[in-house]
């Protein structure tokens, strides 16, 4: 069913009784060309682009829970392409361009809101680093503006400009950055993929990988054995667990990132703002909730919940930056498990096992990458060649000494 204002009118006038399911609930077949493990944003996007861009529709997406139950369902919805290093920036800019046409492409309103992202700086060296980054963005075809303190004040007047412990000296602004209704991204991709023939199989957990003589030929699941020519792992947060079934150790640790939402408030935050002297970023949803977060808790975990020191640290940053938020109440806190990689950069790559592909290591930046991740992974699966913007997102880069370390903190995942 095609969605449109007319359809809504028609259905509304007939008691909303004619809507049909956004996706089928198929039984798994015994064989597919490609199996994608993980029905989160990246897995669904991969399936969608395999079908739409490469005409490969004999595809199953296997999801152990409900579709969209991974980090696509528990993030802070930010999109941006404000990266610095050449291995990263063109990839994230590809993602941004895909976001910009996505809703019309998959006929689903994901409420993409390009109201800008502002990274604040509080010292001269920080500004220098932002200048380096801003230029890298412009050179990759993205947009960036370097603001001084006055420029920041015009954009976002309700911050602490007069009594701050770390005064705001300026910021790097990406106007095309913003937020998206995160669940809708999963749903839109799922609906689009399903429409084109992809089987999305929920409540189907992969319990083993069939690997013989270095070739992966399928998976064992809670709903039986399924064969495939190619198996594409796409389970950020659980990557190590799944890849251990193939006997692989990864340059990844699992960590929890907490996020927070306030009670609904009349509009007060213009776009996305990140604090540069503490761990805090914030935006406001279409419904009025302030959506904010900060640093990961810092210890390895697979539990989707965090602890108080991080909550307090985030709110301290919030109050230091925006003391007008003091009487806004935090309504809900939750956590998502991140694949934290050794250099803060993800992987989209083949593995040493023929037919087994890997997509993961997204750290806390997977959401914004969803379209490009799906696009590039589909490209790799369909052509056996990395997409031109993902040539450096390789698993062997540490062995070769070609890290892509935006933050410069080295092989310590909890610092990225």
């Amino acid at each position: 069913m095609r969605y449109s204002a007319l359809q809504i009118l028609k259905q509304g006038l007939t008691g909303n009784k004619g809507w049909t399911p956004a996706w089928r609930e198929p039984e798994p077949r015994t064989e597919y060309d490609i199996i994608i493990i993980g029905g989160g944003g990246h897995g669904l996007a991969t399936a969608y682009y395999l079908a739409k861009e490469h005409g490969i529709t004999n595809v199953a997406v296997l999801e152990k829970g409900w579709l969209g139950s991974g980090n696509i369902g528990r993030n802070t919805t930010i999109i941006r392409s404000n990266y610095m290093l050449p291995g990263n920036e063109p990839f994230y800019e590809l993602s941004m361009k895909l976001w910009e046409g996505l809703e019309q492409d998959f006929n689903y309103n994901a409420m993409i809101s390009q109201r800008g992202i502002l990274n604040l700086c509080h010292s001269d060296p920080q500004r220098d680093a932002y200048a380096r980054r801003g230029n890298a963005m412009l050179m990759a075809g993205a947009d960036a503006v370097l603001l001084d303190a006055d420029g920041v004040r015009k954009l976002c007047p309700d911050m602490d400009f007069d009594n701050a412990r770390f005064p705001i000296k300026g910021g790097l602004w990406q106007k095309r950055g913003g937020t998206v209704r995160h669940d809708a991204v999963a749903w839109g991709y799922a609906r689009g993929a399903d429409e084109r023939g992809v089987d999305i199989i929920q409540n189907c957990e992969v319990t083993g990988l069939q690997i013989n003589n270095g070739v992966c030929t399928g998976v064992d699941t809670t709903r039986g054995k399924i064969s495939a020519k190619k198996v594409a792992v796409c389970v950020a947060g659980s990557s190590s667990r799944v890849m251990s079934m193939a006997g692989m150790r990864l340059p990844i640790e699992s960590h929890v990132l907490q996020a927070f939402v306030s009670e609904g408030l009349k509009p007060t935050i213009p776009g996305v703002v990140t604090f540069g002297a503490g761990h805090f970023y914030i935006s406001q949803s279409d419904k009025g909730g302030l959506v904010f977060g900060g640093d990961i808790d810092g210890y390895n975990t697979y539990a989707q919940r965090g602890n108080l020191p991080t909550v307090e640290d985030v709110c301290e940053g919030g109050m230091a930056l925006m003391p007008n938020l003091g009487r806004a109440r935090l309504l809900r806190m939750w956590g998502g498990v991140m694949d934290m990689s050794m250099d803060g950069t993800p992987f989209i790559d083949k593995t040493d096992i023929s037919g087994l592909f890997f997509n993961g290591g997204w750290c806390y930046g997977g959401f914004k990458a969803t379209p490009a991740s799906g696009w590039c992974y589909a490209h790799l699966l369909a052509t056996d060649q990395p997409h031109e913007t993902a040539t450096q997102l390789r698993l062997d880069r540490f062995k070769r000494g070609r890290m892509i370390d935006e933050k410069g903190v080295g092989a310590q995942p909890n610092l990225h």
Partner: protein
Amino acid sequence: MSQTYRIGRGLVDTNSTIKFAFNDQQYTGHPGDTLSSALLANGIRLVGRSFKYHRPRGIFSAGSEEPNALVELRRGAYQEPNTRATVAELFDGLQARSQNHRGPLGFDFMGVNDLLSPFLSAGFYYKTFMWPKAFWEKLYEPVIRASAGLGSLSGKPDPDSYDKGFLHADVLIVGAGPSGLAAALVAGESGARVILADEDFRPGGRLHAETMLVDDISGEQWVANTLSRLRKMDNVRLMIRTTVYGAFDHGIYGALEKKTDHLASSDGMPRQVLWRIYAKRCIVCAGATERSIAFGNNDRPGIMLAGAVRAYVNRWGVTPGKRVAVFTNNDDGWRTASDLVNQGVEVSAVIDSRDIDAPLSISGASVVMGASVVDTMGRAGIHTIKLSNRQTIKADCLAVSGGWNPNVHLTCHQRGRPEWNESQACFVPGGVLPDGMSVAGAANGALSLSAALSSGIDSASLTLQSLSIKPASVDTPRADDESTRVSAFWHVKESTKRCWIDLQNDVTTKDIVVSHQDGFRAVEHLKRYTTLGMATDQGKTSNVLGLAIMAEHAGKSIQETGTTIFRPPYTPVPMGAFAGRSRGKDFRPTRKTPSHAWAEARGAVFVETGNWLRAQWFPIDGETHWRESVDREVTQTRNSVGICDVSTLGKIDVQGKDAGEFLNRVYANTFATLAVGKVRYGIMLREDGILMDDGTTARLGENHFVMTTTTANAVGVFRHMEFCRQCLWPNLDVQLISATEQWAQFAVAGPNARKLLQKVVDADTPIDNESFPFMACGEISICGGTPGRLFRISFSGELAYEIAVPTRYGNSMMDALIKAGEEFQAVPYGTEALGVMRIEKGHAAGNELNGQTTAANIGLGRMVSKKKDSIGNTLSEREGMNTENDLALVGFMPTNKSVSLSAGAHFVSKGNEANTENDEGWMTSVAYSPSLECSIGLGFIQRGQDRMGDIVIAADPLRGGTTEVEIVSPHFIDPEGERLRG
């Protein structure tokens, strides 16, 4: 109109009257009132608007679960949005306003949404607003956003302060209702350290809302007696107005204590205190929350939870209506009718969905068994209800009870899942509870008073035994075991009108149908698609109802359907409270250098460097621009002598017989061979071969080194060295201690540095070039016997020393140095001049040591000794870090000397477009060099060392500049190093 609905005294102090305003109308109430009891007393029924359809909303509950009666409390910067009127204590002068309407509350222009509701069903916005594409940004989104949210913030900084604290207990009891009080008695009498916390300002829980007796005295009296016993116990801390909002790992509980919210002014004291409670055990006695039933137009003002109606009548002496009807599926609802009748309020009907004998007789009421309410009339407040048997009944208040949901929230905060109890028709705590937690009373499904009391006693006894504390013997208080029979009933299917589930977010049973049709059937999909349970009450009054109806549609059991995940906080917590004192200037501590007072008196401009405040420059009369000051400081230092407080550099005392060997391993270059009395520059790698830090290390004795680190890395380097010492080489004889705070250290730089120092260093230490050459160090005495240290090291490239004295003398030392230098016109210089001089000299600093660069990148590759193992040595040899195209740190000068360079510009070869493919490096640091009289820069560029003299483009599209620059040696000044050895 004055409190015409006040029918008794309840527990309010009717002898005293207080004034308050709602929507600028003045009313009166009494101490002990909440805003909602006072509004009801004054006959106010319409108090707000719903989120989506802007439907009229009235008070629905009597507790923190309230979804409807949210107000903006107080005025000006104190304005507090979304405040639940049901828990806001009335104080004199209270001002509140209703939320989420355009135009007056009684006629909200946004009410048009209600008429459009057929087109605004669940998920409608995912299906439209996509064409034309440009309209989203220009039209649709701004309109949607303009109607977002409920209350508004003032936009002004929160004028109140907040505090935090840490408490420790053997037993934390959450909730001071009957089971909590009983548990506290046992635990308290047993001598355990007990914290008893309750969100209400009046402990006692439902005992105040009911008319039941305990030990043959009124519930209220029993509560008072119990509290007085507890208050006499030193080991019991009773915390009222305190909500335990979350259960975190290992027995850590978050609690919010409201200190001044019930007062007109906080008077400078913290408004709220956020406690972190470390409890060995926790007994959750959080009670239960009543739920509604979905029937046609069940959202109108005047429709309330039956238990809430009872609470208003019994606790506050207020009746929510003059003619009340009751709709229930359980025996508890009947008590509302009987309590009302006992208070002389007319009960027009009792409608029970169960086809059983009436459990009570209610005088004057028509009793309709096996029936239900299908519709209601009265837009701004009901007046009539329609029953399934077509009967219509007059009522200005409809009390609804769909049964009670135990407050299992805390038991689920560590992802425990509750279990469905069919006979009680509710979820009870299940699965694995957080370690050390038990549950008692209604929260555990013990819904009758007698069961609650005894489960409190029993639970406390078991808890104490698990702590090896002998439980005191406390008699179980006697109470009636009142009937709590219930028969699950969720949805009046005969209703043709919309039946609300989530009152705030306007989720109706139709939305659940659409959600199911659209394929959103998993409980998490339902929530996300319809927004069910995402309102400010987080579904306390709606979730179970919603998922039960979903289960009906899907033909599944409620247990199979399951719940969404319970997350902290139990009730919302202000961000200000989570931040505590850490805001404004108190966001982080301020570290001051030893000469801070001197610099301040001298008029220095300070800059934040991490937590340090450092003098950035020292303006003098007549200087109007920072560059003037900095140029002067640089020039005077290079021409004569300048002094800079460099105490912020990290200093680590490294002692032990293996200290030299230890340093050999943590530094990439060799230190074991350093002679006593000498200093060496060292570079430290991370294990991945990237530069971690650099600095000088002095050998003061055979077994004694003093390492300096950069200011930024002081803590991290120390931690890393402790890791090496304890985990990698546990048997090396080496001890570490930070000495950063111990020494005030000053760089004395410039051609006259030695002459100046000779005036302060005691004569027994000769410091002529021969006795104290470049890279010498020693312990000396200063100004007549003060112990100190002297290092002949130079960051500026000049003849320079660093002189250290114990911190207590630091401020005086700065003064002494400047006075001693008067004859040389010695200047103090700040971090800016320091930065200029290090760029002129080509020293790498933070902008270059950014965690992405190797020793080779900064031209120090040969310092990585291959004669020994050291941290990072092996991995620094990887292929990707040693390519032909590697970046090299070099100097840059504009070909046009009048042009200023910009840090952050990227280098491309002449003729190439500035794009990612052509990117060859970037400018890391720039400065105006007063010595060279032009802008200079340091930067990384591919093969830089081989490209001296090349002209490249420094592209800075960010600031619209493209500059031609020449690649030069990074050592702009004195490349041979003659000055510093002079």
